């Protein structure tokens, strides 16, 4: 059987990278005493996958791990034992027991909900106000940075929903292996629409990961 668990990456530890978060979850599982399954072979490791890496610097409200268990464990017990074994910044919010045949969540991510909190309230309000103007444009060009190059992409089709509220921008952005709109790309486009230059500090919180249900409607990944 497997456990799909929803956990938090808190604000204090937002600078921890994805690999370190993964290792910390694994050590948490080892501390919990839960009957996790290990891989065979010379260097056994816990059978676990994570849906979509969260970037360094961002918090996550509902990140998802998928753990294979060696014995039956109830979701309640999983949550209780993990929360004793995990630091306050990485608590498990809920869990669901699924059988081994349940499809892997890894490939099912389609989008994510974000909360971009602009540190400067006044600039935040101006950016929020610029949303309609930006969305009214035919295309919204943004630069995507990869290790080797900068490419221009139109992020308009990647913004599935967006609204502003005080110094927050709430957006649902496409997130697949093939294409995605990073929060930073959205911020740059908004800055341009609002006529703001220079560095704008923001806190990125990934609120939840979304996948498509049988009828093609976006739904929280852990419910699929």
């Amino acid at each position, binding site marked *: 059987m497997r456990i799909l668990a929803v956990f938090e990456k*808190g604000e*204090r*530890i937002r*600078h*921890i*990278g994805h690999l*370190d*978060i993964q*290792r*910390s979850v*694994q*050590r*948490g*599982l*080892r*501390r919990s*005493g839960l009957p996790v399954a*290990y891989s065979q072979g*010379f260097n*056994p490791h816990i059978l676990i996958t994570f849906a979509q890496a969260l970037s360094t*610097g961002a918090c996550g409200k509902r990140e998802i791990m998928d753990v294979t268990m060696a014995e039956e464990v109830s979701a309640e017990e999983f949550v209780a034992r993990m929360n004793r*074994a*995990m*630091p*306050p*910044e990485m608590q498990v919010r809920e869990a669901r027991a699924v059988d081994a045949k349940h499809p892997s969540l890894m490939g099912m991510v389609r989008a994510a909900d974000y909360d971009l909190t602009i540190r400067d309230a006044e600039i935040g309000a101006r950016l929020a106000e610029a949303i309609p103007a930006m969305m009214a444009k035919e295309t919204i060009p943004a630069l995507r940075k990869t290790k080797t190059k900068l490419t221009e992409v139109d992020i308009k089709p990647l913004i599935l929903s967006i609204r502003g509220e005080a110094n927050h921008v709430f957006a649902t952005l496409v997130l697949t292996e093939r294409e995605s709109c990073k929060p930073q790309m959205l911020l740059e486009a908004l800055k341009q629409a609002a006529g703001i230059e220079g560095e704008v*500090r923001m806190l990125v919180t990934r609120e939840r990961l979304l996948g498509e249900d049988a009828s093609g409607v976006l739904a929280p990944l852990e419910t699929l």
Partner: protein
Amino acid sequence: MDYNEKFEMALEKVQKAPRYTGGEMNTTVKAWDEARLHFGFCFPDTYEVGMSHLGMKILYGLINRESWSLCERFFMPWTDMMDIMKAEGIPLLSMESRRPLRDFDVIGFTLQYEMSYSNILAMIEMGGVPIDSCERGENDPIVVAGGPCAFNPEPLADFIDAFMIGDGEDVMTELNRVILSRRENGWTRGKCLRELAKLEGVYVPSLYDVTYEADGRVRSVTPNCPEASPTVRKRVVVDLNTTYYPEEIPVPYTEVVFDRIMLEIMRGCTRGCRFCQAGMLYRPVRERSLEKLTDLAEKLQEATGYEEISLSSLSSGDYTCLPELIRTLMKNMKDKRVSISLPSLRIDSVLKESLEETQQVRKTSLTFAPEAGTQRMRDVINKGVTEEDLLEKVRDAFHGGWNSVKLYFMDGLPTETEADLDGIADLARKVVSEYFAVPKDRRARGLRVTVSVSIFVPKPFTPFQWAPQDTIETVFAKTGHLKKVLNIKGVTFNWHEPYLSFMEACFARGDRRMGKVLRRAYEKGCILDGWSETFRFDTWMEAFKECDLDPAFYANRERALDEVLPWDHIDSGISKSFLLREWEKSRRAETTKDCRKGCNGCGLQKWKGVCGYANAGGT
């Protein structure tokens, strides 16, 4: 904007932000107002180095265990963070509750390495506390320090209010109680320091006056008040089974230098290597019991989830029940997928079987420290390893599937000649031959022999405390020779630049005047000297010049045997007559036996009930 907000901004700009953010598993965040005494534990190096250090974890747990005291951690920021902190006026903040250092009642530094001294000044200053002890007022914290380098406290005497000499477990709480009294009874700073001086193992440098001879040698160090005793005797924890050891330790999110459980199986060492300061300072040898260790391993593993346990001590191979300990640990840890790193010198036949069975031992590189290349030189330093011993172990390892061996040596040892350097190459060559002597189909492929040669630094409280260090020019010449003779197929030669060792030598045997050089160098920008990218040797030399002191006086001068040494008022338990005897024997290449074969009369035998081997014969 308050400093917390500014600190958050800084985190977005620096490299490796997680080293500043805390929140790790098993860290303790107590309510500030509920504790009566606040201890700021400072590790004068980066987070990654500090979080690998066992002593810090012991004291962190020990202080937080008491309901009345809390302990929070501080580390040395890297230069990028430091620049922002200085520019923005952000004070040095604790990992737990992000409080500035100046808010704590006690600031405690651990002194592991001389080249971290400039970081101490930087941390004190960034923490908002006056650097000079004499400038601190009634509202400033008491700054204390302990650890191996505290045995020669003099170079730091201007900056540290009180030193703890020897094992910290007992004296730590006693010291905290005195400092608590300062707060609760409204003692003056001076009164508090005099009270501290009454504790055994505590040295308060401002209560001692130092006079010098015309040529710069120390003439005397004498107490200037009745509370200070003429000599300060080190503290010894006699029974490691009953003393505090943490059952849960912080687990960093990021990888640190030693990212695993360190189980201190014993303290001290009976071998008596003459260059080794730790071997003298941590006498006598004290072992933790098998039961205690297996219990601790279990609890620590459950509390941390670590995948690896390493046995920690100066010479783990000497632990009395080592095979049994390892077998028990391997049995208990098997289902938890925990591997045990072994002290490399004991891959003997007793263990071989169980190793092959479980595969629980990592086939990482094996390390050996013959320290010197010829038998004569090894006799001079009393390193009780013979070439046969070493080759036999290497042979076993190659047969056991290892392919990588690291050999550690020193150059610049007293009486060293070219033949001793050539001996290093001979030994390396023999190790290579052992590998090729294993049939091709039975040995692991890809031989790697690494020869690392470090530079000998004479240390206080060793028989070599009187010896000169090689000059920088001599070291370069010797390194050049070694490069030539170590040009062997399959062998990699690692050598060190002599500049850092030279500075280390100046501080290791420095007197109080070295404090001026330290302060000057710090003002001129020296920090993080232990890191090659930030170490600025030329600036240190300028600082010496500006203070009118000669580094060679400290590093390269042979001390007269009747000279007052700057640390003579510290009593390590090892008598000067023993050290002298050992120094003289070393000149004749005569060895001294392991204490387990009988007491050698090092001086500790006079402290009744402290050394378990003291009555086993000998002087």
